[in-house]
């Protein structure tokens, strides 16, 4: 069963519908499924609720879905640095739900792992805790957060084999592995396709069971948001 698809649009065939919930991996512009996001835009699917740590920048990543007004709601931990986002949100055209970053990651893991809810200390005593169930464990207060699942998860990995086993690279891993587990359908975008058996099975980050299909992109743009370097000292 080879899960390799010929194109992003082929990979998304039959899984898109208006009003759907989509998880998208990435932290800033690092480890985002560039080609799949472009295919989403081209599909014209509307009123999407997007679960993603950030919302890209004005002209790249999820930001391009703001220009086309395909996003109805964002569930994120940080959306700074995106003017289009700010404008649409201020005008009330865009819903926004903030989650603490670790709570967002854990909610995705929980959704994928059949954990309906979990108790965390994160956010106790803040606006995040408002309206949520509070409970004491060993004299400390925790709040109840719920698992998240998506109709579709779009993830970016480094390499995939025919079975859809995935390996990520450096900090481009971030939210991708947990989101891969929490999609009713999960499509991956990778930079390199390897033959079955090329992976050391101890090194696989996402087992193929979580991956319905994948595409191999060429020339990923991978823009850098903040270039910081040091100088060679003679």
């Amino acid at each position: 069963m080879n899960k390799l698809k010929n194109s992003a649009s082929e990979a998304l065939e039959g899984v898109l519908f208006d009003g759907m919930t989509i998880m998208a991996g990435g932290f800033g512009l690092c480890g985002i499924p560039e080609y799949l996001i472009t295919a989403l835009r081209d599909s014209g699917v509307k009123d999407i609720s997007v679960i993603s740590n950030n919302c890209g920048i004005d002209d790249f990543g999820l930001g391009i879905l703001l220009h086309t007004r395909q996003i109805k709601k964002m569930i994120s931990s940080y959306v700074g640095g995106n003017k289009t986002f700010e404008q649409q949100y201020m005008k009330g055209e865009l819903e926004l739900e903030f989650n603490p970053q670790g709570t967002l990651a854990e909610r995705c893991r929980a959704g994928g792992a059949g954990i309906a809810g979990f108790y965390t200390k994160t956010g106790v005593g803040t606006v995040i805790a408002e309206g949520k169930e509070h409970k004491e464990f060993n004299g400390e207060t925790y709040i109840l957060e719920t698992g998240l699942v998506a109709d579709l998860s779009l993830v970016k990995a480094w390499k995939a084999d025919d079975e859809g086993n995935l390996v990520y690279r450096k900090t481009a891993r971030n939210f991708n592995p947990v989101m891969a587990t929490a999609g009713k359908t999960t499509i991956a975008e990778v930079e390199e396709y390897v033959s079955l058996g090329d992976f050391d099975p101890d090194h696989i980050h996402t087992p193929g069971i979580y991956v319905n299909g994948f595409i191999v992109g060429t020339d990923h743009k991978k823009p850098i948001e903040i270039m910081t370097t040091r100088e060679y000292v003679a």
Partner: protein
Amino acid sequence: MPWSREEIAQRAAEELQDGFYVNLGIGIPTLVANYIPDNVQVILESENGMLGMGPFPYPDQVDPDLINAGKQTISELAQTSYFSSADSFAMIRGGHINLAILGAMQVAQNGDLANWMIPGKMIKGMGGAMDLVAGVNKVVVIMDHTAKDGSPKFLKSCDLPLTGSNVTDLLITNLAVFHFEEDKPTLIELAPSVDLDEIKEKTEAEFIVSPDLKSN
């Protein structure tokens, strides 16, 4: 003379102990990495999924797949490991990070911390700040002692939305250092040429003065 940003960072670096796993927030906290004492080895965590964060890369070693939580390009070290965001915050929430150094807008005398939003302004989001203050063993907060208009930022209670309640362990401002215990914060150190009267005048929070108050 109040401490400069660099001197605040330097003072914060004194809190680092050998073998500590440390998370440094964005802004002045990042500068702390420049002042790690020679006899102290710490491992820096970046909450986007990395332990053993190295310095900024040389220009020809920049890698778009290797950034820190401030989205800056960085480098890796021999001991580096990568993991997912879920595993990263399991580490943070589970109390495995010894120390976090974070900036703040306001701190209250009970340790409440506000550093993520100003009502009326566009809110950017809390990112990982709420997780860090809730989970890390010791939270060191650094900020200017007063706002630009001179109003105090170390308050009886915060009026900005909180990042965490009762989470500050040490507050380092450009004027002084306060240690938080059960009851009230304790003033333990003054910046050079700063005296107790100036602190009292510029602080709304109630605090105790340590019998061992250190002047610099």
